[in-house]
């Protein structure tokens, strides 16, 4: 009794939404207030790491081809790497600011994997459209964590970083297994199920 693929997308959307809200809160209150409680500093890096861990069962149970498996496996790895690096940085175990480059790396790998593993054209169905859109959004938005690696105190970059996760969550919430996009639904996609 597995959930449908679209439901897994919605659950990850919820994780991304919480991640975006936490990041946005950190920008609003500033690092000094945000770090007043130790557990809070680990909150969003821990959430990112947990999403990476949870990507493994997605890879195991929801992939129906080798390219899907590679895509989800690489997401799991880079999410865990980026979340783990951020955990190490906030804990103080990692000192070098170059570890922050793991986040743009995660964005680039995720974006590439989204685009590569979507075999259908943009207007094949809504899920195909969103996979292309998500992929390009991740690729273009990779400049934001890249900017943060060099200018970690930039409020503009921090706000943009937080809002990207909210936008990505909205995209993932819009995903359906078989649904039209702007009135387009390929007959090859099968009947709309709901």
């Amino acid at each position, binding site marked *: *009794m597995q959930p449908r693929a679209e439901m897994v997308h919605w659950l990850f959307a919820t994780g991304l939404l919480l991640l975006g*809200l936490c990041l946005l*809160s950190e920008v609003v*209150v500033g690092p000094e207030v945000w770090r007043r409680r130790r557990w*809070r500093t680990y909150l969003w890096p821990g959430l990112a790491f947990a999403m990476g861990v949870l990507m493994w069962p997605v890879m195991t149970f929801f992939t129906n081809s080798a390219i899907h498996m590679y895509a989800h496996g690489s997401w799991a790895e880079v999410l865990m790497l980026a979340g783990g690096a951020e955990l190490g940085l906030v804990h103080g175990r990692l000192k070098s600011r170059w570890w922050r480059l793991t986040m743009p790396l995660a964005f680039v790998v995720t974006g590439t994997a989204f685009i590569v593993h979507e075999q259908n054209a943009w207007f094949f169905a809504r899920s195909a459209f969103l996979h292309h859109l998500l992929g390009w959004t991740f690729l273009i938005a990779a400049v934001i964590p890249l900017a943060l690696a060099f200018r970690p105190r930039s409020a503009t970059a921090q706000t943009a970083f937080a809002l990207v996760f909210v936008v990505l969550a909205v995209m993932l919430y819009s995903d359906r297994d078989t649904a039209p996009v702007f009135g387009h639904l390929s007959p090859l996609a099968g009947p709309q199920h709901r």
Partner: protein
Amino acid sequence: MQSTYARSLPAARRGWRGQVISLLGPATIAAGLIWGFVQPWRLTILHPLHQGFWWLAIEPPLLVVVAGIVFALVVARPLLADLEEHDAAAR
């Protein structure tokens, strides 16, 4: 006495940062509720007969509402307390 009075009027004492933090959770909850009203067919709970567990458990507008509630209770509430302490210490 003074602190009790301050707690009874938290919004008046909060700066813009406090206002934003206190609004994030309710705004998220409101977004989920509005989505539910606009697309009620995405709420399986409104027509629950013959639906499996996952369709009843995972409903996008409700997930947004849950995310807003979790954020408001787990993150925003202690954060507001810390922000008020920080602002009071700065005065």
